[in-house]
């Protein structure tokens, strides 16, 4: 699937992606009005910085999402066709189990609302706002062969056909 990939070596840490992400997820979608709204719009991408390095991180839309397994409300699903991991905000109760489970730290609490927000790849826009407005092309939206690997996630099926033995 097409995903947003950060390019650390190009990222200036300007956080414009955060700003335009929040605007795209506001009610007005207008940069002059968005930040006056209540609840205030929430960015779903986060620029991490360390000394002069920066890295913009958003939902990885994992193959086997840990957030989806952790969700007690059955609110998180992965679309079999598109691969998009989506949260049904009508079902989300704000228990924060997904925030506890996501090893990328890519899910955020809503502002004032008890819902857990994530990148939705901007379904209303031609391409995700963070990618479109990045001044240095440090974010790309593309299809790559090998999918991102999750931290601590289950390993893929083992190749060798060893006998399964009880070792308890």
């Amino acid at each position, binding site marked *: 699937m097409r995903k947003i990939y950060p390019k650390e070596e190009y990222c200036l840490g300007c956080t414009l992606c955060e700003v335009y992400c929040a605007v795209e997820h506001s009610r007005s979608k207008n940069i002059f009005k968005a930040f006056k709204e209540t609840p205030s719009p929430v960015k779903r991408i986060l620029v991490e910085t360390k000394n002069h390095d920066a890295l913009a991180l958003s939902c990885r839309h994992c193959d086997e999402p840990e957030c989806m397994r952790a969700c007690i409300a059955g609110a998180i699903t992965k679309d079999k066709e598109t691969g998009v991991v989506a949260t049904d905000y009508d079902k989300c109760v704000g228990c924060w189990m997904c925030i506890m489970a996501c090893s990328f*730290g890519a899910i955020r609490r809503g502002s004032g609302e008890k819902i857990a927000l994530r990148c939705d790849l901007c379904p209303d826009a031609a391409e995700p706002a963070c990618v479109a407005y990045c001044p240095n092309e440090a974010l790309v939206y593309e299809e790559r062969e090998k999918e991102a690997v999750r931290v601590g996630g289950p390993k893929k099926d083992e190749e060798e056909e060893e006998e399964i033995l*009880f070792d308890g």
Partner: protein
Amino acid sequence: MAKQKTDYLIIGNSAAGINAIEAIRERDKKGKITLVDQEDAPVYSKPLLSYYIAGKVDDEKLLYRPRDFYEKNEVVTLFGQKATAINPKQKKVFLDSGEISYDQLLLATGSSPIFPNLKGVHLKGVFVVRKFADAKGILERTRQARDVLFVGGGFVSLRTAYALHQRGLKVTIVVASDQLLSRSLDLEAANIVRTRLEQKGFKIITGRDVTQIEGREEVEGVSLDNGELVKAQLVVIGKGVRPNVSLARDSGIRVNKGILVDDYLQTNQKHIYAAGDVAETFDVAREERALNALWPNATEQGHIAGLNMAGAKRKYAGSLGMNSLEFFDLPLISMGVTNPYDKEDFEILVKRVPEKNIYKKVVLKKGVVKGAILVGEIDRAGLITGIIKEKTNVSAFKEELLEEGFGLIRLPDSLKKEKILEP
């Protein structure tokens, strides 16, 4: 129903069973799946019951999957039926009303609440929070009850207490230890929670045992071991759960506290798997076998067991005790080893911002994170979960773990690249 045959037989219609069905269907679109459960209801979320009691979710939103889940996944449901015995050699399960031959069997029989051996525990108005009927019963009881008393101060008790407080009841919580959430938090974190609850009018009694539940037919209160009588027209028992192992144990399947499984979640009997609350698995933080009867563990185990039942060879990395809670705008998350006994082996890092009710703690052993408590500031908590599961050596940047700006960028390049930067 007399005799039936199925490719996959799943006992237990909850987190593990449902995720197993989905995993089987990822690999096998045609095989016959049969699902047995004593309860006659579409799958609902047990952890949501406190939200149901609070009125935050209704009957529909309580459902974990849409009503047509079974139809869409072509699952034969045998609800309201009890599995009474297994014959692993003949690959048969006996039900109240017949028998089923299986090719692969999953035991996802869950756990049951522990009822303390107390006089009065069966009085009208005494509940546990486990099933839909319990939640319904508690809600019904709130019509006449003004005072609710909780025996035990774990996550289920606290969530339900919060729900009933929102419904206007006066809440008392009695715990035998000297703190709330004694299995998940340390005293300092628990005291932040306690103070917040007391500010909102909760009465918290620590270090006291309930000796008897008082009343004739209906509950009227409880007696404590100091002779004190606390009145309550609704009593909720929250003393944890015990895995439902009798079916397995009586059928020659190896059981310790829970059903013992190998790295692939198979029991000592071939073609029989166990997942969810009933399974005793390797705890990645404690580095020993443990019962971690928690939703995220159950769903993942169900998923992996399902894949393996359908022919995969997927290893289970292990379970982790973890939970999350928020009330009165005070969020908290606890994971892994939070309060080690043998403190010499462990290194503990703490960050406190008392005016904001922030308390964060990570527990390390030989440079590897084994647990954490996050109170008041839980954003990106999963970064720590990942580091625990991955057993990343954090010695070089451990001081940064509790900083607000901690992120994947702090990880060594090799790890970071593997995770996100390179495809």
